[in-house]
């Protein structure tokens, strides 16, 4: 029996286990939307296609499954671009399906024609232009396989309108045939032995874990390895949650705004074990001063990451979970008592400077708010963020115990990620508590998705940290541009009224004594709730490694703060 290309698409999507799709219809994908009505898939109508891509991304990060976004040709597809680039930088598995003009019109500048395959070529793991219905089944099968395997990433399928309409025989491809695509799994035994030698001789080892831990599902083997070898664990921004924050071996976050004791540990280590992380410039500081005394073992599934930024003494290319599982029986239990003692001393100094030891000054500080949120939710919520100061404070003070609960745009640093990714995460885990902590700047970039949240009844709690500034840029202008504030002051709308206009309950919070009650109100009210916090306007995120400095040359919170406390 012949069916249309659009029906073949949905046959394939349902076989991939797709239950929810985030998208926006238009001229070039109408046959797909028509066929959708016959399939058991929930469609979320976004308000801007960027939201669709971020929702698919949030869904993917929270569930470990592939997220799906849809858009029409031309502007619909180009609106996805920021979301696709975000997913690419953070290796998030999404499949974007865009409509395209009829194949015979391609290249002729038809209405709403844009070269989407060309535009997205450098920001997708792979992409396809489909010109006939016969190709659809094979392409969709490949796209999902490529998106979720190896180093995951976004895949785009651009489907010409004629291919959606044409009738053809449907046979589901039993297997994927990709001769040039074979993700590695085990690392060679000889290299594992080299790694073990370094591990055995290390006195000051540190594990650096990144997003790859989650992508590979390696959280448990990581814990097993760290505990067996008694090695402290530092995390990248996206690696938060890979290892429980409360564990005595946890060093917390590394990098530009990482914990001081964590960065000091890395700089003074004699062995770094990089687990699924890529030595991004935000975690290394200047490369020629990075961990000068440390040998490096780099485990990554992507060979192009090896030696890219930091030379690996022992590269182990393979699936992290598989490689660490192979390593565990080869290593012994070690004592690193002196090293741990040194780290505890550094940590005590950091604790004294922490804003958490400040007395109540009657003002709202984001770090305190995040701490209150962490306490109220018992550290168990899924938390998404935008990008900037609030993101760093949330990373620092919402201590993640479990993986796949910390969703933030790391590599791309995309403002506007918070709200849509939270909606996507809620669709992945409807029984979980979902919060998004956002700034007043980023929130306004994808504020339109409030309407989507209201329509879907998405149980997403929004905490806006409103300082009337683009805070991180302001901080840089304060530190590095002689406090010449340029285009960072932002007059914000009445967010409570905006929420209420969408039928979303909301509260304005201006005093510390209102915080707990507001959080309780949000948690007790079903569906989306918005809280606007008017926070201290000119506060800086500490510690900070300025660009061009070594990782241990951090700007620290002034010491007098600690004295003031007494």
């Amino acid at each position: 029996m012949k069916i249309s290309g659009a029906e073949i698409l949905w046959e394939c999507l349902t076989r991939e286990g797709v239950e929810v799709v985030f998208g926006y219809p238009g001229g070039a994908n109408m046959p797909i939307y028509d066929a959708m009505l016959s399939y058991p898939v929930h469609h979320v109508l976004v308000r801007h296609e960027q939201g669709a891509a971020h929702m698919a991304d949030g869904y993917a990060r929270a569930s470990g499954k592939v997220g799906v976004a849809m858009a029409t040709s031309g502007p619909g597809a180009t609106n996805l671009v920021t979301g696709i680039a975000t997913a690419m930088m953070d290796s998030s598995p999404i499949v974007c399906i865009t409509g395209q003009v009829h194949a015979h019109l391609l290249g002729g500048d038809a209405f709403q024609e844009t070269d989407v395959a060309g535009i997205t070529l450098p920001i997708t793991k792979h992409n396809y232009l489909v010109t006939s219905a016969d190709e659809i089944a094979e392409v969709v099968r490949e796209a999902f396989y490529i998106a979720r395997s190896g180093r995951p990433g976004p895949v785009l399928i651009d489907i010409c309108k004629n291919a959606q309409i044409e009738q053809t025989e449907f046979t589901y491809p039993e297997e994927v045939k990709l001769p040039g695509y074979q993700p590695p799994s085990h690392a060679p035994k000889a290299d594992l032995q080299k790694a073990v030698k370094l591990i055995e001789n290390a006195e000051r080892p540190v594990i650096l874990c990144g997003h790859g831990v989650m992508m590979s599902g390696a959280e448990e083997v990581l814990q097993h390895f760290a505990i067996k070898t008694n090695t402290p664990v530092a995390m990248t921004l996206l690696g938060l949650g890979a290892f429980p924050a409360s564990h005595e071996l946890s060093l917390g976050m590394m990098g530009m705004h990482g914990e001081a004791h964590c960065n000091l540990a890395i700089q003074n280590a004699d062995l770094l074990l990089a687990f699924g992380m890529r030595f991004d410039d935000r975690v290394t500081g200047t490369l020629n001063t990075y961990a000068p005394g440390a040998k490096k073992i780099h485990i990554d599934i992507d060979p192009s990451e090896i030696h890219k930024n930091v030379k690996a003494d022992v590269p182990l290319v393979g699936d992290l979970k598989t490689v660490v599982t192979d390593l565990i029986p080869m290593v012994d239990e070690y004592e690193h008592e002196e090293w741990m003692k040194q780290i505890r001393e550094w940590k005590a100094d950091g604790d004294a400077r922490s804003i958490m030891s400040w007395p109540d000054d009657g003002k709202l500080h984001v770090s305190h708010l995040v701490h209150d949120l962490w306490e109220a939710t018992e550290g168990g919520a899924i938390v998404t963020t935008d990008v900037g100061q609030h993101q760093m404070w949330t990373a620092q003070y919402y201590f993640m115990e479990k993986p796949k609960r910390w969703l933030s745009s790391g590599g791309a640093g995309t403002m506007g990620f918070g709200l849509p990714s939270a909606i996507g995460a809620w669709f992945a885990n409807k029984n979980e508590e979902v919060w998004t902590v956002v700034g007043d700047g980023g929130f306004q970039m994808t504020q339109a998705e409030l309407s989507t949240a209201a329509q879907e009844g998405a149980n997403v709690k929004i905490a806006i940290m409103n300082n009337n500034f683009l805070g991180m840029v302001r901080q840089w202008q304060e530190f590095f541009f002689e406090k010449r504030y340029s285009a960072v002051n932002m007059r914000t709308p009445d967010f409570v009224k905006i929420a209420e206009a969408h039928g979303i309950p909301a509260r304005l919070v201006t005093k510390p004594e209102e915080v707990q009650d507001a959080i309780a109100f949000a948690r007790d009210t079903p569906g989306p709730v918005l809280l606007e916090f008017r926070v201290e306007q000119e506060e800086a995120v500490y510690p900070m490694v300025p660009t061009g400095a070594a990782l241990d040359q951090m700007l620290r919170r002034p010491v007098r703060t600690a004295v003031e406390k007494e």
Partner: protein
Amino acid sequence: MQYTLIALVEDKPGVLNRVASLFRRRNFNIESLAVGRTEKPGVSRMTIVTNCENDVDARKIEAHLYKLVNVIDVQDVTRQPSVTRDLALIKVKATPEQRSEINNLAAIFRARIVDVAPDSVIVEATGTEDKVEGMIELLRPIGILEMVRTGQVAMTRGEHSGIRRTPGANGNGWHAEEFVPVGAD
């Protein structure tokens, strides 16, 4: 230093674009690129000559190429025993009196005159890049009107067919002693 890479790729639309885009995006230069069919249906072969600072950069290119879904295999033949050839067609201004001089030059380089017009000839030169360059330099004073080159094609010597992935192209077992991190002075 010049590096020569061979890539076997699926013969599909847009693959050349993917390879070229990769070089642009990762900030590497293509010196020459030659693409053609192979002995296997559906498989094309690219010979890419690129200028890199060191082996580390060359290996980065290799690893990035290897990541492209349509790239089946990559080999760096820079230090492999191999045959490389470049073909040039060079149109030279030539009065009937100058033809014999050009003919003599061509003979020395084992080049051929493949077209003769009243006031010009076309010389076809094949060989390593150095040889072709040498030929061009000698023809230049006579007056080159037009020139076209294919870029290098390369094949390793020996009886094995196809190409062999460079050891470590997938990252394992590859150690660069002279590795200098980005930004180091």
